[in-house]
């Protein structure tokens, strides 16, 4: 029995068994210095066009400056806390650039750079981390879910949004960002399974930065890679050098377009590293060596992309200065706008718990108002 809804859905194609497992080594187009790397043996991925890479470069420079500014704001008490994603720029920007405006992004607390790249106002994007009770932006208008803190719990939401679109015959894709630690949570697995069973156009991007706060990847999994986790669910897995912007863009673009075309969900594991501690409140000397951080600094995604684009004659000194100036201006604006004390109207406590406040909430709002009037 087929129904109307099924007729509207684009035809589903299942991944071949051989395609379920990721490539033996992470896909990379650039070596650690931005020189050419072997690329992709299967020839599945296309080297991104220079114009896209130039955009990625500017967005990554801006993202890093924004990130540094946000960390600085914690020291001045303007942000309650900030989890830096310095070093993960290729993943954050690549994820956004692989999507269309009508696609959905499901970010975590660490993905503030991605919000900025999505065009969300910087002050809005920092609302939650300023200590407010709401996410700051309109998820419906920006097609960007609120940043999620309970690990992996947003993954099934991405499946629902994508499956809803597919049922209506729309070609919307949802991309969900998850950390390596988050892959141990049940919701990650349930989301992969549901996405596969309902053939939902979802791309799961795991930013494997090696740690979940202090706990290394070896304590999260004994699997050969996180990308292998797709196979058991019938989800195609792939792994990529997460500090190689070319490879990240190539792999994510392929994954997003494959999902859009009815190829089902894709799981991408990006190998990356967070250069800063977990948040400004973390002491990373307790669990990792300084040398390790230095090693990863030498695989810097911005430096690699810059070297590559320069070698191709696609980036001039003027372009680099322009990107840096734009980033400085952006940071100055963020500084200025987060300078004021955040305000909180006590009435807001009650305003959005339900579509219309219950009698009990109306009563309590009145009591609070009386208390404040004294």
């Amino acid at each position: 029995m087929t129904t109307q809804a099924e007729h509207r859905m684009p035809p589903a194609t299942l991944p071949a068994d051989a395609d379920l497992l990721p490539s033996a080594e992470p896909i990379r187009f650039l070596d650690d210095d931005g020189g050419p790397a072997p690329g992709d043996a299967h020839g599945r991925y296309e080297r991104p066009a220079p114009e896209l890479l130039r955009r990625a470069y500017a967005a990554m420079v801006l993202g890093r400056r924004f990130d540094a500014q946000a960390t600085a704001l914690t020291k001045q008490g303007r942000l309650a806390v900030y989890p830096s994603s310095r070093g993960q720029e290729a993943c954050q920007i690549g994820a956004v650039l692989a999507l269309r405006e009508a696609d959905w992004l499901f970010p975590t607390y660490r993905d503030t750079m991605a919000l900025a790249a999505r065009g969300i106002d910087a002050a809005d994007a920092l609302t939650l981390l300023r200590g407010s009770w709401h996410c700051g932006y309109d998820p419906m208008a920006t097609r960007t879910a609120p940043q999620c803190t309970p690990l992996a719990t947003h993954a099934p939401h991405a499946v629902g949004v994508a499956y809803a679109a597919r049922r209506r015959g729309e070609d919307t894709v949802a991309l969900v960002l998850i950390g390596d630690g988050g892959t141990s949570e049940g919701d990650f697995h349930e989301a992969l399974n549901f996405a596969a069973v309902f053939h939902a156009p979802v791309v799961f991007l795991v930013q494997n930065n090696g740690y979940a706060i202090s706990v290394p990847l070896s304590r999260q999994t004994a699997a050969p890679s996180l990308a292998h986790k797709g196979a058991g669910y019938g989800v195609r897995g792939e792994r990529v050098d997460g500090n190689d912007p070319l490879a990240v863009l190539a792999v994510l673009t392929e994954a997003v377009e494959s999902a859009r075309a009815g190829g089902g969900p894709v799981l991408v594991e990006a190998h990356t590293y967070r250069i800063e501690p977990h948040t400004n409140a973390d002491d990373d000397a307790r669990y990792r060596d300084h040398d390790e951080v230095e090693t990863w600094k030498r695989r810097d995604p911005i430096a690699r992309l810059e070297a590559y684009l320069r070698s191709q004659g696609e980036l001039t000194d003027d372009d680099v200065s322009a990107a840096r100036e734009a980033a400085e201006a952006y940071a100055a604006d963020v500084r200025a706008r987060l300078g004021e004390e955040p305000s909180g109207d006590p009435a807001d406590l009650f305003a959005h718990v339900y579509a219309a406040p219950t009698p009990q909430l109306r009563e309590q709002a009145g009591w609070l108002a009386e208390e404040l009037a004294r």
Partner: protein
Amino acid sequence: MTLSIGKALNAALRDAMREDDTVLMFGEDVGALGGVFRVTDGLAAEFGDRCFDTPLAEAGIVGMAVGMAMNGFRPVVEMQFDAFAYPAFEQIASHVAKMRNRTRGAVNLPMVIRVPYAGGIGGVEHHSDSSEAYYAHTPGLKVVTPATVADAYSLLREAIADPDPVVFMEAKKLYWAKDEVSLPVTTAPFGTAEVRREGTDATLVAYGPAVPVALEAAAAAAEDGRSLEVVDLRTLVPFDDSAVAESVRKTGRCVVVAEATGFAGVSAEIAARVQERCFHSLWAPVLRVTGWDVPYPPPVLEKYHLPGVDRVLDTVDRLQWDDVPDPRFLVPEQAT
């Protein structure tokens, strides 16, 4: 026509799905089987894949419903049994309940989580929990529990139409309770308690599976010349403070009857609210008849656990009719 609560719920789902094709029904065994309690019987046949089975994973079911509610659908999901909704609790508490607030109203989640709950059906372990307090304690959720056939239909229609997420608690032992009703029927809206039986001497406040027990107790008390009023809450959130207080102010005495364990339960909340609002009208402390504070017992012990008519009547007897203090709560010196 004569209809059971189970069939009335089925009719509500069918009518909602006929009227609005964004209404979807999904969960475990809700498709071809029609649900283990047959509440979704025939929906897959009529609506095809608008009523569908999912993988067996409750967090995934509720989490996917969140995403679908964000993107244009009105999902109704079935948790197979009370205790099997616990895997979904994180989704419910952290997302379903909070999404509107954390997006300042930008994201609505018009979804219904149906939970067959409570005991009295001889269920084995993990099949008889009264889990309503977990949900009622979580701001952002509406919690509804019908006790009549007309309410089963009307409250479920209202839940599906509501812009807020609703945890819809269906007392299992009432699925087969029948009444005369003509559908479609519209009863009082959410937040309205109903006086099911008028009385003058004391008020029994009940909800869900305890409502028929309270009514039976009131009928028995009448034979002994005591007139008990029975208030059916219908919705725990929003709570109808005014109807409950109005009744207790009139009668001056109150017993809360609930099947769930009493400690930190909805019954405790009701008792607190009644004494806050009705202290000067009360002739006796507000008493409660609830399940004991034990894990829900196996079928052989169920009858000792469930609040029954006798326990309700005994409790009514302790409402200080002749100014005699309740012997159960005397301080030791008074007792000797």
